[in-house]
C-alpha cells in the first residue's frame, strides 16, 4: 500500500499547456500516473499528450471524476489556482512553484484547512508512491517500491537519500515533498498518522531543516502515537544564521525553537534515530533491516 495517492488516483494538471506542465504530464503518464485531464483557461478542447484540456477545474472534474490536482503554474498565479481547485471541490492539491508569496500561501492554507482539503507544497517536488503513481516533477527512476515512508522539506536531500536507499535494496512506500517554504500546506505531523496506519510502511524517514517548529511538533506526536521506527535528519546545522527579523524573530524563538540542536533533542527524546547525513539515514535503515525490523 501507500499513502495519499496510488494507481487508482485520477489526477488533473493545472497549467497543463505550459512548458513545465506539458513536459511533466508526459513524464507522469510514462510513469503510469492516471492523468485524466488538464486545465488552462482559453485552451479548453485541446489535448496535451492525448489528455483533454479544460477551461476550468470544475469542468475538468465533472468530465473526468478527478480526485487530485497538481498545479504547474508560476508562483504569482498559484493562489488563484488553489482557490479555484478548492472551490470546485477538489480534496487533494499539490503545489510545486518556488517563490510563492507567503501571504498567498497563508490564505490558501487556512481555507484548505477550513474546507477539509489536503494541500501540499509549495516549493515541493510533489508526492510519489513508487511503482504506482507520481504527482510532481521528481525523476521517477531512482525511486523503488518498498516499505519506507519518506517525507522531506528538501527535494535534493530527498533524492540523495532515496537513490542510496534504492541502490541498497530498500524501497519506499510513499515519498512526500512537504516543501521548503515558511508555510507548507501539510507538515510532518499531519502525515505521521497516515504512515503509522499504512500496513506497508515499516519505517518512517523525516528529512527536516533548521527553522520553524515542524520537527518539534512531529517529535511530540511520535512520542505518544508512533510505534514504527523513525529516522530523522536535520540539515543546516552549520548554515549561516539568518539575520534576525527585527526583535520579533528573536522573541518568538527565545526558547531555541528552530535550531538544529533543539530539534534533535526533541526527536531523540521521542525515540527517533537522528542521522547526521543522508548517507547515515541509509546506514541506520540497513541496520534496522539487519535486525529484521524492516
Amino acid at each position: 500500500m501507500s499513502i495519499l495517492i496510488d494507481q487508482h488516483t485520477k489526477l488533473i494538471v493545472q497549467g497543463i499547456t505550459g512548458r513545465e506542465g506539458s513536459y511533466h504530464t508526459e513524464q507522469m503518464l510514462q510513469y503510469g500516473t492516471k492523468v485524466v485531464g488538464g486545465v488552462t483557461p482559453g485552451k479548453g478542447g485541446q489535448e496535451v499528450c492525448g489528455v483533454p484540456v479544460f477551461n476550468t477545474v470544475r469542468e475538468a472534474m465533472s468530465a473526468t471524476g478527478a480526485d487530485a490536482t497538481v498545479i504547474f503554474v508560476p508562483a504569482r498565479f498559484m493562489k488563484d489556482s488553489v482557490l479555484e481547485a478548492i472551490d470546485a471541490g477538489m480534496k487533494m492539491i499539490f503545489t510545486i512553484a518556488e517563490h510563492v508569496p507567503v501571504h498567498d500561501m497563508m490564505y490558501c492554507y487556512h481555507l484548505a484547512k477550513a474546507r477539509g482539503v489536503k494541500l501540499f507544497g509549495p516549493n515541493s517536488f510533489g508526492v510519489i508512491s513508487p511503482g504506482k503513481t507520481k504527482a510532481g516533477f521528481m525523476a521517477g527512476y531512482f525511486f523503488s517500491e518498498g516499505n519506507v515512508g519518506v517525507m522531506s522539506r528538501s527535494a535534493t536531500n530527498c533524492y540523495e537519500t532515496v537513490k542510496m536507499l534504492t541502490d541498497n535494496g530498500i524501497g519506499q512506500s510513499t515519498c512526500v515533498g512537504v516543501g521548503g517554504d515558511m508555510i507548507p500546506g501539510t507538515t510532518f505531523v499531519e502525515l505521521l498518522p497516515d504512515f503509522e496506519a499504512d500496513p506497508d510502511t515499516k519505517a518512517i524517514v523525516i528529512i527536516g531543516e533548521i527553522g520553524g517548529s515542524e520537527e518539534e511538533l512531529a517529535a511530540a506526536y511520535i512520542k505518544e502515537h508512533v510505534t514504527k521506527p523513525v529516522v530523522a535528519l536535520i540539515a543546516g546545522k552549520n548554515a549561516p544564521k539568518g539575520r534576525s527579523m527585527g526583535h520579533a524573530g528573536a522573541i518568538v524563538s527565545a526558547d531555541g525553537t528552530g535550531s538544529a540542536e533543539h530539534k534533535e533533542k526533541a526527536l531523540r527524546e521521542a525515540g527517533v534515530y537522528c542521522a547526521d547525513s543522508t548517507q547515515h539515514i541509509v546506514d541506520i535503515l540497513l541496520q534496522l533491516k539487519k535486525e529484521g525490523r524492516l
Partner: protein
Amino acid sequence: MKLLEYKAKELFDKYHVPTMRGCVIDSSEHMEEAIDQAGLTYPVVVKAQVQIGGRGKAGGIRFADTAAEAKQHCEALLFSELRGYKVNQLLIVEKAQNNKTELYLSIMLDRLTKCPMIIFSANGGMEIEQTAKEDPDKIIKLTIDPFVGVKDYMAAYLLSRAGLDLSYKKQLFDLLKKLYQAFMDYSCMLVEINPLVIDANDRLVALDGKIDIDDSALFRLPDIQEFAQKMQPDNPLIKEAADYNFLYIPVEDEGSIAVTSNGSGMLMSCIDLISKEGMKVKAALDLGGGATADRIKEAMRILFSTPGVKAVLINIFGGITRCDEVANGVKMALEAEHSDKIVVIRMEGTNKEIGLTTIAGIQNADIVSVPGLRECVKALADRRDRL
C-alpha cells in the same frame, strides 16, 4: 526586503500611524532647509539610515538641541560607515519629550500558527529581547485569524494582560487596525514599532519602525521595487549572482571552500559535512533547477572570484538540472581563465555519463570527479593543506 526606517515611516504616514514629524536628507548643506520645510522644532534626533540592529549603541542616533549641533551630527554621520554599512541618508525627527512609558508592538507572520501574530509588551525599548528570555510573561502574543482580522477585544486583551490602563483601548485598536492593514497590503513578514511611546499627552506614538517585506511579493509592490533598486547590496557578489537568478550566501568569513548545488537542502548538507570535518565554507551558491551551461559558467566565475576561496565543490543531483550542461559550463569556466583553484565535482542524475566524459576531457585544471557526497568531503579533506 527590509525597509530602512525612513521608508517604513513613509508607509506609517500613508496608513496614518502616528509618528514624530521628520525629514530625510542626503546632503548636509540642505539640512536647515529640509528642517524648515518639514516645520520641525528643536530638539531633534538625527538617525543614520542603515539596516543594522543596535544602531543607537553603534553611535548612529544622535540628539541635537540646536541647528548648529544638528549640522555637526549630520556632517559626522552622513557618508560615514556604521559596522561596515555606508550611511547615505539621515532621518531627522523631532525629539519626543516627557514620555510616560515605552511599549513594544509588532505584527509578524508566525510559522507555528501560520497566522499573523501580535507581540506586545509594556517593557519596550532596547532590552526587549532580554525581557523575552528572562521574563517571558511580560511578552504577550496574540494570533490573528486571517479570516477574522483585528477586533477591539484584542486591544483590550493586550492592555489587560500587560497591566496597562484600558483607557488606551480605542487608540491601540485604531493603531492595530492600521498596522494590520499595512501588514496585509504590503505582504509583510514583520511590522515592528519599538519603542511605541505613550507621550505626555497620553497619545501612542511610534518612535521607530521596522518593516520586512516578503521578497516573493515584490512583483506586485512597485513602490517597494523602486526602493529596493536604490539599496546597496551588502555583498556585490550577492547582486551579481542574483542577476543570473542564483542565490549567493556568504557563510564564514575565514572559509576557503565555496560550494554550489542545485538545491538549498543539498547545500546545507554539504556545509554540515564539511564543517564536521573541521574545514570552513566561505560561500554557497544555489543554482536552483535547470541551470544551463552558460549560467553554470557564470556561477563558477562568481565562486572563483570570491576572495579567499581555494576550492570549489560542485554537488549536483540532477532531475531538471542536466549533468551534461553542468559539465560543459564547468569546462567553459576553467578554459576561460587559468584557475589555480581545486575543483571537486560530483554529479548524479540526468545525462550523468555524458557529463563525466566531458569532465574527464578537461585539460590543465586541478579537477577531481567523485561519486558521492561523502567522497566530496573526503576529496577536500585530502587536500586540506592547500585550503
